[in-house]
């Protein structure tokens, strides 16, 4: 057995992103590369019960969010969900899901490194996103903590939902709406650069 553990990169190391406080900034950005992301495939009552027994919430309908405690379930399709949670619990939850689903036609796939998360907050967040995303994020149209959309931003596929208070640990975003953009790892570079550009005239704060 090897004696070394390798260091983890975050996919944006090359941008040397440093925390940048700016109380006047209307756009706030954070990169959250290491959250646990588990893709779940399956269906039927037994599947729902098994998932609920581990995550604490039944898989929601497509386009909806559900969750409990530290985990959020995003409904991506009629038989597909993305479970989002804390990295430290990833292995245990993966194992628990596989045990609970044993014997069912289901798939539990670790996609924690396939995707990364960029969080967009501040009073100009929705406007900055509207610069390159066709989803309607108006509070009337985008049902706050219950809705998730699969759309694109700056020609990159993204899974987008509004931050659920207390779920992400992004306490600094408190007080303004913020949005979680989950996107494939290699596109983070483009999306990050785009967002920084979008904030050129309104100021950008970057959270560690």
């Amino acid at each position: 057995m090897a004696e070394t553990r390798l260091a983890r990169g975050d996919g944006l190391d090359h941008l040397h992103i440093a925390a940048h406080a700016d109380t006047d900034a209307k756009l706030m950005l954070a990169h959250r590369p290491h959250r646990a992301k588990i893709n779940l495939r399956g269906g039927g009552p037994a599947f729902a019960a098994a998932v609920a027994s581990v995550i604490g919430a039944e898989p929601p309908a497509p386009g909806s969010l559900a969750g409990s405690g530290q985990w959020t379930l995003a409904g991506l399709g009629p038989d597909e969900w993305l479970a989002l949670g804390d990295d430290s619990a990833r292995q245990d939850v993966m194992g628990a899901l596989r045990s609970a689903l044993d014997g069912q036609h289901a798939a539990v796939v670790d996609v924690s490194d396939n995707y990364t998360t960029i969080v967009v907050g501040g009073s100009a967040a929705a406007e900055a996103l509207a610069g390159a995303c066709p989803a309607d994020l108006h509070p009337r149209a985008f049902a706050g903590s219950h809705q998730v959309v699969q759309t694109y931003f700056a020609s990159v596929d993204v899974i987008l939902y509004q931050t659920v208070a207390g779920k992400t640990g992004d306490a600094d975003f408190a007080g303004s709406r913020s949005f979680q953009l989950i996107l494939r790892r290699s596109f983070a570079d483009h999306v990050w650069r785009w967002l920084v550009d979008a904030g050129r005239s309104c100021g950008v704060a970057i959270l560690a």
Partner: protein
Amino acid sequence: MPGPVMRLAEGGRIDRARPLEFTFNGRALRGYPGDTLASALLASGVHLVGRSFKYHRPRGILSAGAEEPNALVQLGTGAARTDPNQRATQVELFDGLVAASQNVWPSVRTDLSALNDVLSPLMPAGFYYKTFMGPSWAWMQYEKVIRRAAGLGRSPSEPDPDIYDQRWAHCDVLVIGAGAAGLSAALAAGRTGARVMVVDEQSELGGGLLGEPAGAQIDGRPVSDLLADTLAQLAAMDEVTLLPRTTAFGYYAQNFVGLLERVADHVPPGERTHGTVRERLWKVRAREVVLATGAIERHLAFPDNDRPGIMLAGSVRTYLNRYAVKAGDRVALFTNNDSAYAAAVDLARAGVAVPGIVDIRPEGPGAAAAAVAAEHGLAVLAGYTVVATHGRSHVRQARAMRLSSDGRTVQSGMETVLDCDLLAMSGGWNPTVHLFSQARGKLRFAEEIGSFVPDLYPPTQAMRCAGACAGRFGLTAAVADGLDAGAKAARAAGLDGPAPTLPAAADAAEGPIRLAWHLPSARPDKPAKIFVDYHNDVTAKDLKLAVREGYTSVELVKRYTTTGMGTDQGKIGNVTALGIVAEALGASIADIGATTYRPPYTAVTMGAIAGRRIKRLFDPVRRTPMHSWHEAHGAVFENVGQWKRPWYYPQAGEDMHAAVNREVAAARRSVGVIDATTLGKIDIQGPDAAEFLNRVYTNAWLKLGVGKCRYGLMLGEDGMVMDDGVTSRLGDTHFHMTTTTGGAAKVMSWLENWLQTEWPDLKVYLTSVTEQWAVVGLCGPKSREVVAALGTDIDLSGDAFPHMSVCEGEVAGVPARVFRISFAGELGYEINVPAAYGAALWQAVMAAGAPHNITPYGTEAMHVLRAEKGFIIVGQDTDGTVTPGDLGMDWIVSKQKDFLGRRSLLRSDTVRADRKQLVGLLTEDAQRVLDEGAQIIATAEIPEPPVPMLGHVTSSYYSPNLGRSIALALVKQGRSRLGETLHVAAADGSTVPVTVASPVFYDPEGKRLDG
């Protein structure tokens, strides 16, 4: 500096406290905030602004808006910030603005190309088609001369320094046009709490209301109060967005509307601060759209109707009331309808002399217009028409004669001469139906207004028209129509509110219009030009000639004569042109129909279309987790789709050839390492996973053992090779598929499509994991030592971990999937770890391989290594027309089972004997490397065309391991030509002799796989 001699002492919506200075053709002039360039020029007495497109006739400002065909100017100076073809009628004045006439040489007053006017009898409709017939090569020469003579403005020649932006938006009700109808609609919709967007192309919201005189009333309320109050109410509504300076230029499917907001075009370039957006393109999805786009006045087609000083009457009125500019001191009017009387009355009230109103209607105007004309003592020449105008660079006289009852001739002898410095004309009004028509609405010709009105609304759009654009003229009607449309639109969008209170009064009744599409001259023997399309210099005679020459469709007449094809798109003259064509055909306008309206309504800058997608933000650049290491170690990158992949790693003093040779040699003699992260990866799970693979690959998959890997070819339904890769069985119901880098997304969609639509019975789940795994590929006899040195719990012995197998375990302390596979025919491992560890694993591999002088290699060396083995690259050695049989890969095509594409392999075309087949080519000169893509022929001499082509070179390299060049090629019946000498055409016209060989050049027995 000349004072604004034509500016009234008071009135208008200009800010007289802040004079602005600008230049036109180098002359310093003055205007005020609130002016357009056109209003400021008229205020300074400048009418002559340009020369016409073809005949270079002097032309003046005709209109006050987007319909302007004449007053096109070049704005700004320098090579970066200069804009051609800007309509002076829409350019907002700012301090320091620089404008110049275009299409003139040497100056607008003395333009030498005006000779074209004298020669005009030689330049009829279709002149270019008729004259510059051929030979075809000569067109390139003609074209340069014609471009110079018939040019428009100059394009900027340097990169645009301004910032352009884009924005998506959604609303319940989008109101296009902020005149009386649009603002009323917005108010009614806004009161329900609806999300409303109001857009208007002008700098100020109000539309036609802005051109009403002080004291004008609607339903007993002063217009100015009504406007101010409405705007204040709208501004106070949280969900209402007001966008002045914004043109709705395109109306697309499902209420998708494109807007161009000119955010800072009116700001002097020097004051555009860092980060300021110049223009913003909006992409709006609206639940409901209210079109309140108003109407555009038609001109009258009469002899000499293009002199500077001949203007549209409604525009003259706008200049007077909105900008406090009298466009002339002595204004004659010429009309076929009542609307011009409002202009005459406003002019008279402002103290301008009005020598007469020439009205072609024998009965004269309606009662209300007649009454105000009488009240102001205005002379009406009822039943008269203007037969000629005089004045070289400005109109100074109009001559009127009595028009016959059929409108074709004039009665001789009855002539009235009107001395004037301005002739204001009105030919009626065209509802601005451009967006309605773009949205696929169907139009109807309404005889009572002589124009097209919205008729059939398209079922796919939620849209309604209000006010003048619906053919309902009059301010009170516009308010009533707008309130009604706005309330209905909000309700349709799901919002409720009280029904709006409609105006109690109605607009005064007007007398009927008299339609006469072109008017006669006094001298039929010596006819003057009657312009229909000012911009493209199309006359009534041109249109009649086109019909005589057999062009009976309006779409063909349009293209033959270029009517309506200028920058103004015929906003003023198109209906008149239709009237003339209909008359010449002996048909009605309703029968011949209108030409198609297409976006954009007015021009959209390329900058706005690009938005921020420029330079580094043009397209995503995908980097692997190891990219920074490659950069730091001098890699030269190549683009593979959006990915950047190391191409080769030159060391000091090395060129590409030397670097690739070194990398290739190392991978065969010791150990090389490649970043293979970009390969597509799909996780496949489910009890039917093996059956699924059996259907999508050409070979058999049911019996692949757990822990084993297999190479597979995927075909399209046409039987052609689509993708390839190695897929491995991780468990009974669990596979790990790899695809080509470029094919990853396409293969995922392809597989999902089959699963979801054709084989829903198969229990299989696919998950894309391309980016979950970073992949380090080791190649060469020392690769096993390197994996061992990294530290792993996997038994690396040949028996425990043979070629084409997979093991899961830990490598360097990280969970890994290790595949023992090779694209180079060597001992090789592909180590997959979660992507976050990719960079660190790479560095660990470099350290572990240091004792063996481990050599990173790029895609070029990979290509050489695989070509030495005759392994194909899909997309390089195949091009969508190549079957497995063509590649000599029948061994991978099962005869026992069905698979996607199988039936197509039995088609007569796919089994014919003379298909192109993949072979190797060896040059006689071993050092000569062939050009990829080069054509292969049978003879050393290139015969006269057409030259029989036998095929082409698909891959070509220098192989350091063989000490010679190698190439792969697709050659007709190639496998039956082994040993034959063929010739490859080189770019310099010579040919290179080659011998056809097996495509496997190196280690054909595969002995090296075990190191």
